[in-house]
């Protein structure tokens, strides 16, 4: 009878005759044999030579088989070392105590060669099974460690990209996100535009793990790059959608809400593609306006079919926008009931202190679900005074040696261009070549943006700014704006920029003209400069931020100057 494998087998038996008999049987079957005459010797032999299997007599002097079995099992730890008790015991109780001591099987005297070989074989199968399970368990544990480490590294890289914005420094943002949200596909980004507006994106990629994380990187790059350059939501959304459509497989996409919060204009512009309703909470009235999903997620539609239409809502100081991921409403309790929209509404209704809402939602989720999910993302952004918000200084990489100082340029943008194209990022980039202007780039951009939108909306499109007096009119105003723009046939906006050196410094003159009907300049100029209204053509903003602001040609031509002194 040839064994499959050669095992090292320990025989613990106080009878020299039995030891000899068993040894010779096992050797004939091809195994290596170790022997011990009592329990102490057996434990000692095991410790020194770690046999694969033990044949153990129950009754032995010095230390009996039960105790020796216990000690050997303890020494073996997780490794299975089968112990077969050799016994002439026949009482049930004695046999049971063999098993309790850690024995795996019995062999009754007198010994039968065939049964002994079969039992060794069966035990060997068990031993291998255990070894395989342990090996696989260790392998899985190693892979898991490896994966976690990879995630740590990937997250560190991603954090550099994703958190290059103002999420952690802006005083008006509170947010909650699992540290490993990236691997659930949740993404939260925030950054200032050059004019001091704030762009915020809360996104949720389909799927989990690495695939969900992969798309986040290019999305963050587009978001930060375009926001910093002064692009609006529509252009940024188009670029994000086109990029994701190009790089992601068909079944992957990104639900997202993108906001532009304007502290100057006191408004929020919203685009929601596939995210749960966000909320605009008006503190004065306690009213909550839903920011519902009106679009397909990013990365689904082709660039041609993509819809970048946004909604604009007025805000008052202290008003807040609250966004959440579906992890919030999909939180389930022990009975698999959903927290749901209703759960969220209940928290809203019971809220008395707007500042406490964020904690109350978290508390309600904890009370409801019992265990935290790692795909719960929430963010709350409040509207503060522009002075309370300090956008970080822009970082420039060039030395300024080749800065142009004496030039002028003029653009005329006609109807077909006005419909789709936003010239502001290009103008701003051009002006940032002038080093002396960089310190005022925020004010400069705000003024340019106001002048341009005045010329377009009130000039070319002929929209009445008094419409924006109340919240309902505000929404109507932006609907009209879109409708008029779609229907636009002719008209123009001209932008003239002139940079001239003055001593050590210089002067920028901006003139913006439009083809509209103009307005009553004298009446508008009579209004106090610091009057804050939803309407009012941004005239007071332009007069505060620029120098020598003036209007001519019945309001069809606006001119404003920026000066700078010698650079240090």
């Amino acid at each position, binding site marked *: 009878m040839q064994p499959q494998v050669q095992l090292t087998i320990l025989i613990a038996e106080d009878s020299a005759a039995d030891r000899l008999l068993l040894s010779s049987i096992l050797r004939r079957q091809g195994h290596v044999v170790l022997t011990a005459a009592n329990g102490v010797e057996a434990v000692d032999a095991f410790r020194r030579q770690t046999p694969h299997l033990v044949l153990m007599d129950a009754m032995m002097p010095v230390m009996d088989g039960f105790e020796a079995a216990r000690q050997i099992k303890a020494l073996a730890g997780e490794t299975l070392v089968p112990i077969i008790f050799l016994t002439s015991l026949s009482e049930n109780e004695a046999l049971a105590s063999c098993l309790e001591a850690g024995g795996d099987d019995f062999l009754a005297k007198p010994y039968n060669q065939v049964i002994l070989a079969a039992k060794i074989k069966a035990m060997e199968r068990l031993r291998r099974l255990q070894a395989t399970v342990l090996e696989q368990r260790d392998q899985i544990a190693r892979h898991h460690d490896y994966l976690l480490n990879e995630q740590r590294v990937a997250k560190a890289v991603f954090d550099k990209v994703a958190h290059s914005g103002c999420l952690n420094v802006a005083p008006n943002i509170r947010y909650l996100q699992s540290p490993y949200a990236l691997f659930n596909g949740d993404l939260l980004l925030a950054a200032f535009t050059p004019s001091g507006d704030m762009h915020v994106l809360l996104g*949720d990629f*389909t*799927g989990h793990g690495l695939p969900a994380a992969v798309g986040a990187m290019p999305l963050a790059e587009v978001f930060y790059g375009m926001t910093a350059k002064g692009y609006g939501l529509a252009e940024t959304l188009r670029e994000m959608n086109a990029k994701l459509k190009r790089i992601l497989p*068909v*079944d*992957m*996409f990104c*639900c997202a809400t993108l906001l532009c919060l304007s502290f100057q204009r006191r408004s929020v512009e919203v685009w929601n*593609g*596939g*995210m*749960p309703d966000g909320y605009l909470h008006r503190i004065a009235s306690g009213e909550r306006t839903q920011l519902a*999903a*009106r*679009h*397909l*997620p990013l990365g*689904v539609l082709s660039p041609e*079919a993509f819809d970048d239409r946004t909604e604009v809502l007025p805000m008052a100081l202290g008003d807040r926008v609250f966004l959440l991921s*579906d992890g919030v409403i999909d939180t389930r309790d022990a009975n698999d009931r959903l927290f749901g929209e209703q759960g969220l509404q209940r928290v809203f209704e019971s809220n008395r202190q707007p500042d406490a809402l964020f904690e109350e939602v978290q508390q309600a989720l904890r009370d409801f679900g019992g265990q935290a999910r790692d795909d719960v993302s929430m963010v709350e952004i409040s509207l503060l005074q522009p002075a309370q918000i300090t956008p970080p200084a822009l970082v420039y990489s060039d030395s300024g040696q080749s800065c142009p100082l004496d030039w002028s340029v003029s653009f005329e943008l006609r109807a077909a261009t006005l419909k789709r194209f936003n010239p502001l990022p290009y103008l701003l980039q051009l002006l940032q070549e002038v080093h002396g202007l960089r310190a005022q780039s925020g004010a400069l951009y705000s003024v340019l943006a106001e002048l341009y939108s005045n010329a377009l909306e009130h000039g070319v499109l002929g929209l009445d700014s008094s419409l924006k007096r109340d919240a309902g009119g505000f929404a109507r105003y932006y609907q009209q704006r879109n409708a008029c723009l779609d229907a636009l046939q002719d008209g123009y906006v001209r932008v003239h920029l002139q940079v001239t050196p003055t001593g050590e410094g210089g002067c920028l003159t901006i003139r913006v003209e439009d083809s509209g009907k103009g307005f009553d300049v004298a009446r508008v100029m009579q209004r106090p400069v610091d009057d804050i209204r939803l309407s009012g053509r941004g005239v007071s903003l332009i007069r505060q931020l620029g120098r020598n602001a003036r209007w001519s040609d019945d309001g069809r031509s606006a001119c404003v100057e920026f000066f700078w002194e010698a650079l240090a």
Partner: protein
Amino acid sequence: MSVISEMSQDGQKLTISIKGRFDFAKHQQFRDAYENKELAAVVVDLKDATYLDSSALGMLLLLRDHAGGDDSDIRVVNSSSDVRKILAISNFDKLFDIS
């Protein structure tokens, strides 16, 4: 079987019925239901679907792509109010005929 596909007699209409949770676990079965078939009209029957997650939305997009993208003719029928809500949030009614 939790995903059943049935071709109409004339070979013009493929009906795919989903039973239980429509999530990533059904990925392979759902693909098998329409791959290697000539697709004219497709009906996805969600009468017995209890839940639908974002990977199911992805699977529907794959089916749409396979059936000709913008030229595809796919109807999603018998969706429960919960399921319909998920489809509505994602604005999938702009891509599919949902009832």
